[in-house]
């Protein structure tokens, strides 16, 4: 059974086989919709908007989902020496990629992840005014949540694909990567099992800038590469596509830490072939 719904700013496609496929898919879409609602930059009552609108120094209680995403993002910010950062809302708004949050105080110049404290009891406190955007990690997290829900049902296999960020379990899958410079052509990654693959690319954008912020320059980048990451979880894969682009020096170590591998399609059409095939 296979269904698709518009969520997370893309079409989310869920495929499941097994006796429980129908209720499993329904429950998986429900958790994705919940993550979408909590982490939307646009929705005024999302956790993200509540953080963006809260005055500096005030603690807020956020959902367990938001807390998990922020904790992972914090870990990655530390490992990438601040190159990966969710405190990029101001740059994204300035670039016209996100709307100005309604009712939010102007963010402090050069505010970073160090200004967002994650306290016990799912409490979040912005020491300075920050605008966060979790677009670089939440889609992968939502896919992971859907997979977790699907695993609770009697299924032989399942695939969740949120606009190219995907994860699956059960039957090994033939995974392919789209070449952004020639969208009709695909690169094969071979047969993979029980893993996640995410890709980031600026090539689909007709704008001069892409939704990837260089924290040193405080501006969005022009991104002419496509990076795919294969990882045990989709949140890791999703976020590491940005880490590989933003800090190539630290990327090998970070990839290794998360048991992940990267495939880069650059202007020369070269690809770094991973070694995770099931038939090895």
């Amino acid at each position, binding site marked *: 059974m296979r269904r698709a719904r518009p969520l997370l700013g893309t079409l989310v496609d869920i495929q499941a086989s097994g006796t429980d496929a129908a209720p499993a898919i329904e429950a998986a879409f429900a958790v994705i919709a919940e993550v979408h609602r909590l982490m939307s930059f646009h929705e005024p009552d999302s956790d993200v908007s509540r953080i963006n609108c809260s005055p500096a120094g005030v603690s807020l209680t956020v959902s367990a989902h938001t807390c998990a995403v922020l904790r992972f993002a914090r870990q990655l910010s530390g490992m990438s020496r601040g190159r990966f950062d969710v405190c990029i809302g101001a740059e994204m708004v300035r670039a016209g990629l996100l709307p100005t949050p309604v009712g939010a105080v102007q963010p402090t110049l050069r505010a970073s992840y160090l200004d967002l404290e994650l306290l016990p009891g799912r409490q979040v406190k912005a020491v300075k005014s920050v605008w966060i955007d979790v677009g670089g990690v939440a889609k992968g997290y939502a896919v992971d949540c859907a997979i977790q829900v699907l695993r609770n049902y009697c299924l032989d296999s399942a695939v969740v*694909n949120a606009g190219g960020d995907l994860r699956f379990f059960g039957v090994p899958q033939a995974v392919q990567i789209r070449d952004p410079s020639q969208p009709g052509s695909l690169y094969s990654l071979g047969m993979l099992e029980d893993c996640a693959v995410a890709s980031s690319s600026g090539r689909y954008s007709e704008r001069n800038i892409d939704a990837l912020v260089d924290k040193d320059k405080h501006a969005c980048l022009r991104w002419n590469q496509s990076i795919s990451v294969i990882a045990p979880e989709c949140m890791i894969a999703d976020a590491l596509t940005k880490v590989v682009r933003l800090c190539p020096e630290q990327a090998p170590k970070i990839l290794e830490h998360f048991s992940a591998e990267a495939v880069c399609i650059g202007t020369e059409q070269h690809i770094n072939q991973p070694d995770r095939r099931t038939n090895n």
Partner: protein
Amino acid sequence: MNQFNSQLVALSALAVSSQVFAVQYLSAEEARHAMFAEATAFKDISLNLNATQMNEVQKIAGVPARSVVWRVVAAYKGDALLGYMVLDDVIGKYELISYAVGLNPDASVRQVEILNYRESHGAEIKNAAWRRQFVNKTAQNGLRAGEDIATISGATLSCTHVTDGVRRIAAIAQVVFRKVD
């Protein structure tokens, strides 16, 4: 095993035989049963919006009403109205998406389901003659079904047109159905 820094290997792309991918998720018939499982009858109540209604829709939705004619079925359990399902198609940058919006009797959105999805790359999507080739076609009778698109990474799709479409249909429901009831 991390090979990120290993030697770059040039691979030839496995070219796809056709530039068109198509995925059939649900037929309109299946969608209405999925949305209104308890329904005992469906009635075609397709709409023709008048100029006043189209203006109202645009005011509420913030997007033009776009079309006069809308394909709608009403779902009933016995004599009780359960809701409506509106069918629509949108064209995105690279794709043609058919979808259905389930609505409650009070015009609130109950469910959105993608019925089918076809994508292409390049100029042909902007060409009306090219788009017409899809009319009355399905994956079974003319399009190559891209069964493995489920596992293609990097296929970021915009759902902006579907989101706008759902908002438009919700506005149509407010303008037309709430007044009928």
